[in-house]
């Protein structure tokens, strides 16, 4: 990229800039014509100049124009018109000029706008393209939030400047010189005075603005760092909370904001000082004209008419001059911004652009061995992590890499994964240097997984298939309006130097899935088997069961869920397990659910955070009143309160037993205690509505088998069931959207899939109810062929930013599964499974090796192990110690020797 923004703009928009300048010049003709016309209308037809006699006629549009020196001459004799017709004709011309001027303005502005937007698009694209090509060592220093604010905000003014970059100075410069020239014509001396003043203005003001530019630079950098800091806070929020450093972060932010404030305020001050000075200078010139010119006029050495003409001519000078100075200011401003941005993106050793060339061709799988030849790798501080290491990995090998001291194994894996570039020596694949091969070869032949592998915002499926999206594998054929849109997209992308790949095309490379038997379900099988191998299948299933299915989007799943509901109920009866679930029955009280749930008898949608629980809304109390339940539940609540107070009153507020009460805190208990005491000492005192509701609330959330206070009588249960219809009779509109009544034969969109299938409450009294349900429901799911659609549903789960909606373990497993979905010659796992149970780790490592060995492309597996005992699952073991390979042999051979390996594994 050019060092100078103007040059950059010129290089990319040269022809457009010339075109728009020409248009602007042409537009000047009607513009100035429109200036002169009013005078003609007023003087001519209105005031009657040239129409002294009633039937006088004048010539319309007559002109005689000759170009000096050439003797070339054009003229028009004009049309003879009377006064009224002349007025109408001139007015019509005026209207025409107004329209023409407006159209010119419209065209020029949109043209400039488009020019600017295209350039902005080009710069942004170029910057992101550069980020994609940053060498790995530079990437370690990059703050994501800072880069995004540079790409998004800091380059924004370039767009606005582009349109004016050349047109403005040309135009304004022309206007200013014309005005100055005109003053010279009138009087050379006064012209000289004006010229000197202009020179002072043009010379001094930009100098004064140097400080402004310097401040602008500071503002840009501090604002960028602020963006970076905010990004860090969001990323590191867990650590901040864990170490109670929120106030340290507050102090940091406040300090930065203070700095920004200081810079911005100083900027204001300077801006207005410069403005003041500029205005002063431009008003000083007329002062000189009046005083000096006036003096000479009085003395008689200057013609008064000349002086007036000069002062009139001067009127047209400050405007363009000021704008010219402003333009220069804008130019310097964007130039500084441009330099600041460029500095961050002009790095040495960018990855060559051709390494990233799009290649839709199926890679030539079956490349030769992966060899590290005498490589030295340094860490971020420049210390050598491995030195002079040579390792050759043949196809089909399974290699365990173990570190004794140091982290040589990890560094080797990173070098194989192109995450670090060796300082000396090279890594070759086949016979070619890994760093000189295009990524379309290395990025497909080698699959690298480490803990830091990233997840993109999207569904589980999007992330699993991410490793297959190298190039569009299909071309979409558009028609009609869409085709025009697509043509426009391509054209615009090319005009702005962007890539024009079609995002709507199918990017999933179905020819490089790990399972490839030539069937249409290879991709699906690869995904399912990969999930199985890393033991993520049940997690995905859980995600599906936890999700809310919109029955309109997924009518089949919704319908089957209801079928499954009935099948599950029957199966439980058959197995004599009917008692482990209390099903929702429209005519019966569900003893395992709360009183409120029994009254509502509905799935409730979780409202926004500020909305109260449906059971706590005033409408519920209203219904209770009407159903005659209010007093019953109040009395019941009193007994519950007495029991709770008796049990909990003596416990300190922070006691963990309070966790047993889902909805009550120590303060609530204290409140109930006070209330009960008040009632005891002053019997018969009226109970406030609030207190009453507090007590009734206890009853509403009561579950007999859970609390076992023995307060729920048959009468209450019957009345609650009877009140269900009453509840729905006058349901307020705001609740109607949040409630979906239970219907054994319908799918409830407000409930999760699991709740829909279960359609009841698990018994509080059967300890293994959940396990039994899972077993039986799993069987029914298979019988009904629902497993696939549920997996599909689970795969649609949105993993959140960076995969944060998944647990850490799930993320590590998913990262592994993503690698297993794609076909590669070399799989490099760099401590890919930390923090897992040893047994599970072993199972997964074994599964992964088995899965990959099953494939027909004879891949190699290189696994840097934290758990050294797993090395027995591999054929070959490489042991690193202080950055060098100390042992490298088959597992059996090393197992017999008594070297470092033996001591590590023992």
């Amino acid at each position, binding site marked *: 990229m050019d060092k100078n923004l103007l040059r950059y703009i010129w290089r990319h928009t040269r022809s457009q800039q010339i075109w728009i300048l020409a248009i602007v010049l042409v537009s000047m003709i009607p513009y100035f014509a429109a200036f002169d016309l009013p005078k003609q209308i007023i003087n001519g037809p209105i005031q009657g100049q040239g129409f002294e006699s009633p039937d006088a006629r004048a010539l319309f549009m007559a002109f005689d124009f000759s170009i000096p020196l050439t003797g070339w001459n054009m003229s028009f004799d004009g049309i003879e018109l009377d006064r009224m017709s002349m007025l109408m004709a001139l007015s019509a011309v005026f209207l025409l000029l107004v329209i023409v001027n407006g159209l010119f303005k419209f065209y020029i502005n949109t043209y400039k706008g488009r020019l600017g937007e295209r350039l902005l698009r080009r710069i942004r694209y170029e910057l992101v393209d550069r980020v994609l090509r940053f060498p790995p060592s530079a990437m370690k220093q990059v703050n994501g939030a800072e880069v995004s604010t540079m790409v998004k905000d800091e380059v924004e003014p370039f767009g606005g400047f582009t349109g004016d970059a050349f047109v403005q100075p040309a135009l304004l410069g022309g206007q200013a010189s014309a005005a100055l020239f005109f003053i010279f014509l009138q009087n050379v001396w006064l012209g000289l005075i004006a010229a000197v003043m202009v020179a002072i203005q043009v010379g001094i003001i930009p100098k004064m603005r140097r400080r402004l530019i310097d401040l602008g630079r500071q503002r840009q950098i501090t604002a960028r760092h602020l963006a970076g800091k905010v990004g860090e806070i969001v990323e590191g929020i867990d650590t901040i909370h864990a170490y109670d450093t929120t106030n340290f972060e507050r102090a940091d932010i406040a300090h930065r904001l203070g700095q920004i404030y200081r810079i911005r305020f100083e900027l204001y001050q300077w801006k207005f000082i410069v403005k003041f000075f500029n205005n002063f200078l431009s008003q000083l010139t007329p002062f000189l004209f009046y005083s000096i010119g006036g003096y000479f006029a009085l003395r008689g050495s200057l013609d008064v008419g000349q002086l007036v003409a000069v002062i009139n001519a001067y009127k047209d000078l400050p405007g363009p001059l000021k704008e010219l100075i402003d333009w220069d200011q804008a130019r310097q401003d964007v130039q500084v911004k441009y330099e600041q941005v460029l500095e961050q993106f002009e790095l040495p050793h960018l990855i060559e652009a051709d390494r990233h060339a799009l290649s839709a061709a199926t890679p030539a799988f079956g490349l030769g061995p992966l060899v590290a030849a005498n490589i030295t790798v340094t860490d971020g501080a420049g210390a050598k992590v491995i030195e002079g290491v040579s390792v050759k990995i043949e196809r089909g090998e399974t290699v365990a890499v173990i570190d004794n001291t140091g982290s040589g194994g990890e560094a080797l894996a990173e070098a194989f994964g192109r995450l670090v570039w060796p300082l000396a020596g090279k890594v070759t694949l086949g016979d070619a240097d890994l760093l000189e091969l295009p990524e379309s070869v290395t990025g497909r032949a080698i699959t690298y997984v480490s803990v830091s592998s990233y997840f993109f915002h999207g569904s589980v499926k999007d992330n699993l298939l991410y490793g297959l999206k190298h190039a569009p594998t299909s071309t979409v054929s558009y028609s009609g309006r869409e085709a025009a849109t697509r043509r426009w997209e391509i054209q615009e992308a090319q005009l702005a130097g962007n890539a024009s790949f079609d995002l709507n095309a199918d990017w999933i490379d179905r020819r490089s899935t790990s399972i490839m038997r030539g069937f249409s379900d290879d991709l699906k099988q690869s995904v399912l088997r990969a999930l199985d191998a890393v033991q993520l299948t049940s997690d995905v299933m859980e995600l599906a069961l936890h999700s809310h299915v919109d029955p309109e989007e997924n009518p089949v799943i919704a319908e089957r869920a209801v079928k499954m509901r009935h099948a599950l109920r029957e199966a439980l009866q058959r197995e004599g397990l009917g008692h482990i679930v209390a099903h929702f029955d429209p005519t019966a009280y569900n003893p395992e659910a709360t009183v409120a749930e029994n009254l509502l008898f509905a799935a409730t949608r979780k409202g926004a955070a500020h909305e109260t629980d449906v059971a706590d809304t005033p409408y519920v109390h209203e219904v209770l009143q009407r159903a005659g339940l209010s007093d019953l539940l109040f009395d019941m609540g009193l007994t519950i309160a007495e029991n709770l107070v008796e049990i909990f009153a003596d416990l300190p507020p922070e006691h963990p037993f309070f966790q047993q009460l889902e909805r009550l805190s120590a303060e609530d208990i204290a409140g109930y205690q006070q209330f009960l005491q008040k009632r005891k000492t002053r019997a018969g005192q009226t109970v406030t509505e609030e207190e009453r509701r507090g007590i009734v609330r206890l009853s509403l959330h009561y579950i007999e088998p859970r609390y*076992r206070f023995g307060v729920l009588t048959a009468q209450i249960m019957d009345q609650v069931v009877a009140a269900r219809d009453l509840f729905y009779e006058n349901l307020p509109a705001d609740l109607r959207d949040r409630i979906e009544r239970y219907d054994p034969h319908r799918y409830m969109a407000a409930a999760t899939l699991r709740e829909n299938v279960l359609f009841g409450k698990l018994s509080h009294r059967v300890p293994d109810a959940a396990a039994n349900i899972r077993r039986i429901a799993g069987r029914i799911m298979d019988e009904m062929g629902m497993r696939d659609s549920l997996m599909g549903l689970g795969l649609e789960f949105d993993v959140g930013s960076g995969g944060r909606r998944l647990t850490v373990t799930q993320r590590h497993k998913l990262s592994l599964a993503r690698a297993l979905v794609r076909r590669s010659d070399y799989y490099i796992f760099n401590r890919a499974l930390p923090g897992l149970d040893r047994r599970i780790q072993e199972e997964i490592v074994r599964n992964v090796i088995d899965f990959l060995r099953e494939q027909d492309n004879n891949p190699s597996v290189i696994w840097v192990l934290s758990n050294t005992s797993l090395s027995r699952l591999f054929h070959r073991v490489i042991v690193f110690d202080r950055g060098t390979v100390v042992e490298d042999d088959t597992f059996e051979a090393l197992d017999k020797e008594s070297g470092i390996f033996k001591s590590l594994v023992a």
Partner: protein
Amino acid sequence: MISLNDEVKLLRQIPYFGRIDAFKLKLLAFTSSRACYEGGQIVFHQGDASDAAYVVLRGTAEIVAMAPGGETSLGEATAGTMFGELCLVSDAPRLSTVRALTALELLRIPRDSFLRLVADNPRMSAEVSRALAEAIRDKAASLARQLARVPQRLS
């Protein structure tokens, strides 16, 4: 239906809890949960991780030790008795299997709740230690008696 207060009454009859305040027992009962089994179902297996003690509210359970040669009955637990209480002082795996003989209703006292309660009440701690020691002595004695019978059976 057995209510919380009935549970408390039952707990009082158990030696460990005999001298503990009623409201403390109520808290213990409240933090415990009910568990129902049908005849033949296993409450826990020998070797399982132990995380709770049980009090029989209704029905009868059989306590058996699994040995390579077959299973030996170690006794029965009926309403008002407690089993699995060793877990309250040690987190070793279960030493025996417990099977429901009839429909069985249990109060399941989680180890954590129990230890928390003991920690809050030093006197209770002493009570429980004493009762546990006695229980273990009784068990040892009964085991000795059973062992004494083994040679005769073998011969």
